């Protein structure tokens, strides 16, 4: 992933402009090959990243994505538009990725939320619970001061370090901009679980950035 604006279809769009996905879908149903490739290119990266949280290799993740698109083509008439197209796509992907990864049985409870991990290291608080080593304000021009690439690499490294479900939730919600209900739908999570995973993942991201930014300040 690179690090620049603007993003088109995967942004946090909620305005009621015409969904480009639906236009493409219509063209696809009418037999337009290029509409298919465009649709794939719009969703490929998020799908691949999500698939990768279920399977052990990049190659298998790519197979899962291809397999998902073939399934989408075969079921194209069944899409009713009750959810957004991407939610539908990602839910199909997750089903296939789970089968491919053989991890269906491994629940979130056992892999991701086994123990409490503090958002901020307990050492940084006094015994009263007030800050002992408080965070320092970041400059407004982080991207110029630290470099967009260094910040991006830090975020990607922190994401790569997360337990799989946590990573999936943070990517879908904060990188790809899905609504939390959509995240729950795609990953088959309860809202409570989604919030916990999101909280933990976000805390790790912030900490990773603070580590990078603090190192430059001092």
């Amino acid at each position, binding site marked *: 992933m*690179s690090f620049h*604006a603007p993003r088109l279809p995967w942004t946090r769009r909620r305005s009621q402009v015409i969904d480009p996905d639906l236009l493409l879908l219509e063209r696809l149903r009418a037999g337009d090959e290029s509409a298919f490739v465009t649709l794939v290119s719009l969703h490929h990266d998020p799908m691949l990243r999500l698939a990768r949280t279920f399977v052990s290799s990049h190659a298998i993740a790519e197979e899962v994505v291809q397999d998902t698109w073939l399934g989408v083509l075969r079921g194209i008439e069944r899409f009713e538009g009750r959810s957004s197209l991407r939610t539908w796509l990602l839910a199909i992907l997750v089903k296939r990725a789970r089968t491919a990864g053989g991890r269906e049985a491994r629940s979130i409870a056992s892999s991701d939320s086994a123990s409490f991990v503090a*958002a901020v290291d307990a050492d940084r*608080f006094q015994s009263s619970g007030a800050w002992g080593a408080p965070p320092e304000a970041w400059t407004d021009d*982080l991207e110029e001061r630290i470099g967009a690439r260094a910040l991006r690499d830090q975020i990607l490294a922190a994401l790569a370090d997360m337990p799989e479900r946590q990573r999936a939730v943070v990517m879908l919600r904060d*990188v790809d901009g899905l609504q939390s209900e959509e995240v729950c739908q795609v990953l088959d999570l309860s809202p409570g679980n989604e919030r916990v995973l*999101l909280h933990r993942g976000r805390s790790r*991201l912030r900490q990773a950035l603070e580590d990078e930014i603090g190192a430059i300040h001092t």
Partner: protein
Amino acid sequence: MRFRRTPSHIWCQQVVEMVSDYLEGTLPARDQRRLDHHFTICPPCSIYLSQMRETLRLAGKLVPEDLSPEMEQEFTEVYRRWREES
């Protein structure tokens, strides 16, 4: 005698565990008010909150990789296979 209702106290160490829910708007109204109040009186926690906002802004700016020409070709073939079978 009656007490004026000020939001009950909350420690910074608890606040950082609630910041994500605070931003999601999923906290119970009472906790939302306690945090609102806390941020007005606690500069370090309000810095923490801005850092979290900045973190999410940066995460939201990661953009997807473009599809490589080889992948485009592969997906074109997926499409043609499907056309043939249908």
